[in-house]
């Protein structure tokens, strides 16, 4: 390939660069690799995501679709090099509006926006949508992006934090600048000098036995291939997992593959050579076995077992029982029943899995995208046969996660390659590899019956869900336990039996995805609630309010609740419900072929791991130079922990949030804050941060002999503490330095008080729950079955909004994913392995959102706060589906509600 190089001149930011490169290389790679313009992100290499959008002679282009030679003598602008003034205004606008979360799509979005802003300095919403329609964002739900672009040319700087308590302020994210200026280091952005590229040989079928041929000979014929690694090279335990007793997933399959795309070997060598290799001639032969792809097929009596020790392909069953559900249904005045199916849903973060690894002082150092650094460290060490302290995990910025980057991906493969070759190595999944090999949302087949008395009070519910957990255990057990705990919805259900089963198939492994099965269960329950409200003759919102859980109520798990803000949410929605209903009726009176409808659904969600210890530890230290450092081990995958945890720590200590310097996450530098999952970080790490701040504050009070602090300043080796009129200064340079390098330091751990669940699922699975409810307004085309979501009104009880701007960002982003779940997302193994055939919402699909933040403080939460990240997705799909039914009568029983399904359901309803 190198001998085919040509001279190519690229004009970038006014400077002409003369390169020698192959004319048919993707421009995106040339910009990233040859010119180090890493703001150009690679999300799909197919023009489907727009992350690599650059301006070529002023017009937006996907750099991944442009052969380098076509850019010869063109003027190219990337985020690093584009017009500095406009770039600065856009950056500040994005930060002020919370328009960047993970930041992976941000450079592409901003380049598209720049083209627009030059032509239309004050664009309207439609213009922004048209200009940005080709860039996908999976985090934000686009609404804040639209606002930021519209406001860019009026933006005069970054909004500063007000000089008062940080908690409650919408301060721009503290880690935001690198996300908006393109300098953030994601998994693919750091490659050590001399690093070798790793590619995986993957299974081309769903289920097979395999054996290798002459791999040594294959390597010998390819001098630039340094090594091939197979399972035989694995020194440790070739089975990882997120739940140690069930760890079952090989880093490289040994002789049996269980899903399409499972890796069996690694090829490592010179990046240019390995990248170009055709791996289809790798010496491996496959002997196909029968396979199953659905929970129904996996559960049939004669289905082949995926794991010998798991009879009936059953990974686990879950159960929560209270009262006498069958009798309650028998005695109920009204009973409704239904069966619902959901599909595999792909996380579709814009950053495919990627990372780099190298040896540093005898320690294997892995910098890769992740949501769970300490688990990565433990599981990777186990696979490699190393002690955990010989593995260091530095989380790269994660370009979206949503649950899937909780599982190990590139980490053990990077480790194997570095240990084998003794060289730094890197690995980047292609979009198709990412979609084949990453976990998915569990498809579910759920049946339920719910009964109510003559007054409309729910008396009992029976639920069963079969979930397709795919090839390996991953988070299947968590889904199977969380679903029965939550399947009642946040409603009093005195008699209840909910069961679940996680069934292995040869589909992709289903794991964690925002909500852990609860969104699927909520579709079942909330759609049946509309049926039940109708039978009871009650307004749908009023029916939900009548049954809403309140303080002192018992959950089906027997837990007595406190700080339940659901009624507050429903009350806040009530005027919007009335308005939306009137709007729809008015529209419907004027239109025959299109009808509007409204729907409502609620959510509850326990924050933290289910009935398990899951502590977080925060260290807060002050150096002799008066630097305040927050060792924050919670990975911020865009949701905002780096900002929210700092806000909590600053207020607990009594300093301005500006004084806080963030350290980590990094397993060598930060204590364990557990996983970024289960909506636990604001609550659990927040509590640890609050405690660390308070402990440090107490230490300062002791040192200064003050009884309270009204001010605390750090400067030039001195700490000055104020109490009203008096102040005391401490010479920090005179204090002894501890092992962490601090003169004052506090380290605190918080583990939520939970209990194990008994055989009936009774106990205290979570210490804190969050609540919410959403109204969807939709318009359905009666002839074509297409649905347009017009507006979502979302009320969420967050206990205390630590940062309202970031909380709204979570709400809008969750709604976008809920909208996708409801209307378009359906991962079909072997068919939708790219972002061309797998559809997620674009900027044109996302309606305006009205967020109502309800604050009913939880005594257990930090400053009253509850989790939010997953809650927000749960009500969206059922609210939309209920609105579709309200509009056109279509009872949807399988999501996504693609137009053909809506039209068929409309006909069935006639």
């Amino acid at each position, binding site marked *: 390939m190198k001998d085919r190089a040509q001279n190519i001149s690229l004009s970038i930011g006014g400077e002409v660069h003369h390169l020698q490169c192959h004319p*048919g*290389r993707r421009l995106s790679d040339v910009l990233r690799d040859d010119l180090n313009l890493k703001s150009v992100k690679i999300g799909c290499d197919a023009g489907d995501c727009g992350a690599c959008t650059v301006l070529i002679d002023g017009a937006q282009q996907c750099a991944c*679709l442009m052969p380098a030679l076509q850019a010869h003598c063109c003027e190219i602008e990337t985020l690093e090099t584009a017009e500095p003034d406009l770039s600065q205004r856009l950056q500040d606008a994005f930060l002020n509006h919370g328009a960047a979360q993970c930041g992976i799509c941000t450079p592409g979005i901003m380049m598209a926006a720049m083209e627009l802003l030059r032509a239309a300095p004050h664009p309207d919403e439609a213009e922004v949508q048209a200009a940005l329609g*080709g860039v996908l964002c999976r985090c934000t739900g686009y609404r804040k992006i639209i606002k930021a672009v519209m406001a860019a040319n009026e933006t005069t700087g970054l909004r500063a934090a007000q000089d008062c308590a940080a908690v409650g302020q919408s301060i721009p994210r503290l880690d935001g600048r690198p996300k908006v200026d393109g300098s953030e280091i994601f998994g693919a952005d750091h490659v050590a000098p001399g690093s070798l590229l790793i590619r995986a040989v993957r299974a081309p079928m769903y289920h097979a036995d395999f054996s290798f041929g002459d791999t040594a000979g294959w390597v010998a014929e390819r001098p630039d291939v340094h090594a091939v690694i197979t399972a035989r090279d694995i020194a440790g335990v070739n089975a990882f997992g997120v739940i140690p007793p069930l760890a079952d997933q090989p880093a490289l399959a040994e002789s049996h593959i269980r899903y399409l795309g499972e890796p069996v070997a690694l090829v490592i060598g010179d990046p240019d050579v390995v*990248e*170009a290799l055709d791996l289809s001639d790798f010496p491996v032969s496959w002997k196909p076995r029968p396979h199953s792809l659905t929970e129904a097929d996996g559960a049939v009596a004669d289905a082949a077992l995926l794991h010998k020790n798991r009879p009936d392909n059953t990974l686990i069953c879950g159960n929560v029982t209270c009262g006498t559900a069958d009798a309650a249904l028998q005695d109920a005045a009204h009973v409704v029943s239904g069966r619902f199916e959901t599909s595999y849903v792909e996380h579709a973060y814009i950053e495919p899995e990627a990372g780099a690894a190298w040896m540093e002082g005898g320690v294997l150092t892995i910098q890769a995208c992740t949501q769970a650094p300490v688990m990565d460290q433990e599981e990777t060490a186990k696979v490699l046969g190393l002690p955990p302290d010989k593995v260091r995990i530095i989380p790269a910025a994660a370009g979206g996660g949503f649950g899937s980057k909780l599982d190990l991906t590139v980490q053990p493969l990077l480790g194997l390659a570095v240990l084998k070759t003794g060289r730094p190595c890197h690995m980047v999944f292609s979009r198709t590899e990412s979609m084949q090999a990453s976990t998915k949302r569990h498809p579910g087949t759920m049946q339920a019956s719910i009964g109510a008395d003559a007054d409309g009070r729910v008396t009992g519910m029976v639920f069963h869900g079969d979930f397709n957990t795919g090839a390996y255990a991953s988070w299947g057990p968590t889904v199977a336990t969380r679903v029965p705990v939550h399947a009642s919805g946040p409603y009093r259900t005195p008699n209840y039996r909910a069961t679940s089963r996680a069934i292995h198939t040869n589909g992709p492994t289903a794991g964690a995805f925002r909500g852990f099965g609860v969104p699927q269960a909520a579709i079942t329950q909330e759609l049946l609630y509309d049926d039940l409200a109708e039978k009871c003759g009650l307004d749908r919102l009023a029916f939900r309010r009548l049954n809403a859980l309140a303080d002192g109520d018992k959950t089906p798990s027997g837990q007595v609740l406190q700080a339940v803000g659901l009624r507050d949410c429903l009350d806040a929605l009530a005027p919007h419900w009335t308005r939306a209903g009137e709007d729809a009726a008015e529209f419907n009176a004027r239109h025959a072929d299109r009808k509007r409808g409204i729907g409502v659904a609620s959510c509850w969600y326990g924050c933290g791991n289910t009935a398990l210890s899951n502590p977080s530890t925060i260290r807060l230290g002050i150096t002799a130079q008066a630097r305040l450092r927050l060792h924050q081990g919670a990975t911020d995958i865009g949701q905002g922990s780096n900002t929210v945890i700092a806000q909590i720590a600053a207020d607990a200590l009594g300093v301005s949030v500006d004084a806080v310097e963030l350290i980590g996450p990094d397993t060598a530098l930060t204590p364990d804050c557990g996983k970024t999952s289960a909506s636990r970080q604001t609550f659990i790490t927040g509590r640890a941060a609050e405690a660390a701040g308070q402990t440090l504050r107490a230490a300062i009070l002791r040192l200064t002999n003050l009884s309270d602090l009204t001010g605390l300043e750090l400067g030039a080796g001195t700490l000055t503490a104020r109490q009203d009129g008096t102040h005391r200064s401490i010479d920090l340079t005179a204090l002894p330095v501890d092992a962490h390098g601090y003169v004052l330091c506090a380290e605190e751990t918080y583990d939520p008080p939970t209990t194990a669940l008994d055989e009936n699922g009774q106990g205290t699975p979570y210490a804190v729950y969050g609540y919410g409810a959403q109204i969807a307004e939709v318009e359905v085309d009666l002839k074509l079955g297409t649905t347009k979501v017009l507006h979502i009104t979302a009320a969420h009880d967050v206990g205390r909004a630590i940062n309202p701007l970031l909380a709204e960002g979570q709400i809008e982003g969750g709604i976008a994913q809920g909208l996708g779940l409801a209307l378009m997302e359906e991962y079909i193994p072997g068919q939708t392995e790219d972002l061309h055939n797998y559809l997620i919402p674009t900027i044109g699909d996302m309606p305006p959102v009205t967020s109502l933040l309800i604050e009913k403080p939880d005594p257990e939460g930090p400053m009253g706060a509850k989790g939010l990240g997953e809650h927000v997705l749960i009500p969206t799909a059922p609210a939309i589906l209920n609105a579709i039914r309200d509009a056109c009568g279509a009872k949807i029983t399988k999501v996504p509600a693609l137009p053909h399904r809506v039209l068929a359901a409309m006909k069935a309803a006639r």
Partner: protein
Amino acid sequence: MTDRHLYQRPDTLSDALSLLASGGWQVAAGCTDIFPATQRKVLDGPTLDITGIADLRGITRTDKGLRIGATTTWTDIIKADLPAAFDGLKLAAREVGAMQIQNRGTLAGNLCNASPAADGVPPLLVLDAQVEISSPEGVQTLPLAAFITGPRQTALAPTDLVSAIHIPVASMDGRSHFLKLGARKYLVISVAMTAARIVVTDGVVTQAALAVGSCGPVATRLPEVEAQLIGQPVDASLVTDAAVARAIAPIDDIRADATYRTEGAAELLRRTVDAVS
């Protein structure tokens, strides 16, 4: 020719044709289909990049009608000053992917890729587009309907190059419209799409051209339905479900089932006709 890394970008059509004559080339222009088709970082070749041939890009009036050069992009179409008969083509151009794709993708590439869901085919079918094929032996033109012979199949020989698309003068009358049905806004492969061009003289339809895409192996005109419209005032209700169903051959796929496509295409076509009235 075995060197898959060979990449040529000639300046003239004759140079391109000489190279093609040696065989084995993949012709590249906007690369919006061929780059996604390879998962690799370099175009699998040998690649003949025709974007360096200035004469192949642009829209020109000729005495026979309108000539759209092979490397004319969708954005070029959107920006061009064209008669109302091309409104449908412009609407289709705005529905091709999103702006990044419209800025790169070419009309001729869309035809050569021959996807059953190619956005450009129905609006060009209703313009009676002719495909100009250049080869070392000379130039010939084929009606678009004869050019696309099946899904991902064309009448193009390995040594041929599409050099232009011609729209005959006689087909540049009237008004046109285009509708695309998909599961999301932007960047979407259609479930069905329809195009219509209608000429009304003295209150009645004197020319009617209708086409449906994504509802069969190739997009198709609907002569039976077109005939129904002739001689009447524009009336979308003359587009019957039965007649549309007879003209198309949809399949079930991940985006929709065949039953839905049949009904949806008829409804979409009625709306398209209605929009031209």
